């Protein structure tokens, strides 16, 4: 059976956590855009990049917005009707991290046009995630894999059997 399920599945999570995080991310990114290139935007962008970095490289349990959800929001809600696999939302954090780094580099290098494009795309992805529960990065993932071809896919694959 060629099922993509790995031998050890990671602990499932409350799917509302990443959506809550995406809502905060949307607000932060919109504020960054409206502020425009400058020191205030730079500070917010660094915070956002660290948030994505923790979610992507360390794990969703370390994502600051997820921690806010866990400590402040979740206790006031009913338990989730179902849990979800943490790998898709963690991949979304990685996509966010790539866009945030691109924005950061553009800002520091004073490429205003690139800055607006990168933050704009990140905002679209975050809004789709929070409003429609839709993962843009996950959709582009397979196209990316196809473009990169097989050898790399095998090296990167977290599930090499």
């Amino acid at each position: 059976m060629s099922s993509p399920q790995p031998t050890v599945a990671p602990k499932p999570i409350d799917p509302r956590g990443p959506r809550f995080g995406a809502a905060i991310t949307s607000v932060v990114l919109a504020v960054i855009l409206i502020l425009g290139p400058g020191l205030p935007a730079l500070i917010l962008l660094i915070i956002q990049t660290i948030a994505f970095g923790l979610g992507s490289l360390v794990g969703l349990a370390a994502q600051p917005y997820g921690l806010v959800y866990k400590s402040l929001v979740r206790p006031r809600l009913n338990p989730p009707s179902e849990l979800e696999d943490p790998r898709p939302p963690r991949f979304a954090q990685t996509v966010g991290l790539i866009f945030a780094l691109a924005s950061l580099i553009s800002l520091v290098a004073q490429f205003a046009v690139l800055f607006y494009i990168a933050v704009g795309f990140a905002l679209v992805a975050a809004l789709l995630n929070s409003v429609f529960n839709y993962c843009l990065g996950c959709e582009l993932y397979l196209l990316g894999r196809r473009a990169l071809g097989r050898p790399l896919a095998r090296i990167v694959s977290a599930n090499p059997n």
Partner: protein
Amino acid sequence: MTGLYVAAIAVAVSIAFGLYRALTDGRIRGARRRDGDVRLGAEQLGQELGSSATFVQFSSEVCAPCRTARRLLTDVVKDAPAVAHIEVDAETRLDLVEQLNITRTPTVVLLDEHGVIRHRIVGAPRKPELLDALHEVLTRTAA
């Protein structure tokens, strides 16, 4: 001011794209023109086809709706012994992905008894449409 415009455009694009996807995702599409040339079998899929019809589901690890699709299809084939559900990991089967030109997961292709693609469903499938498509393939098989 530029930032405000960019933010407004991003919001408009997100809403338009999100609504478009909400409307079209999981809808049944007929086979593509070149689908008739492809014949899938146990050899490529690693599992026997159903004797009347087969759902082949392309999934990936980063895909949350794939799990919903898996549950739905498992449920649909449960009471239909002649219908099979085969799940394929798109990342490890990029050959099949290229051959069928699968662009995202989940994509479900519905095969008839000969392994010919009759329908494609891109995005999380919807149960009533899934049953309609299956019914159509099964009645055509019987006819």
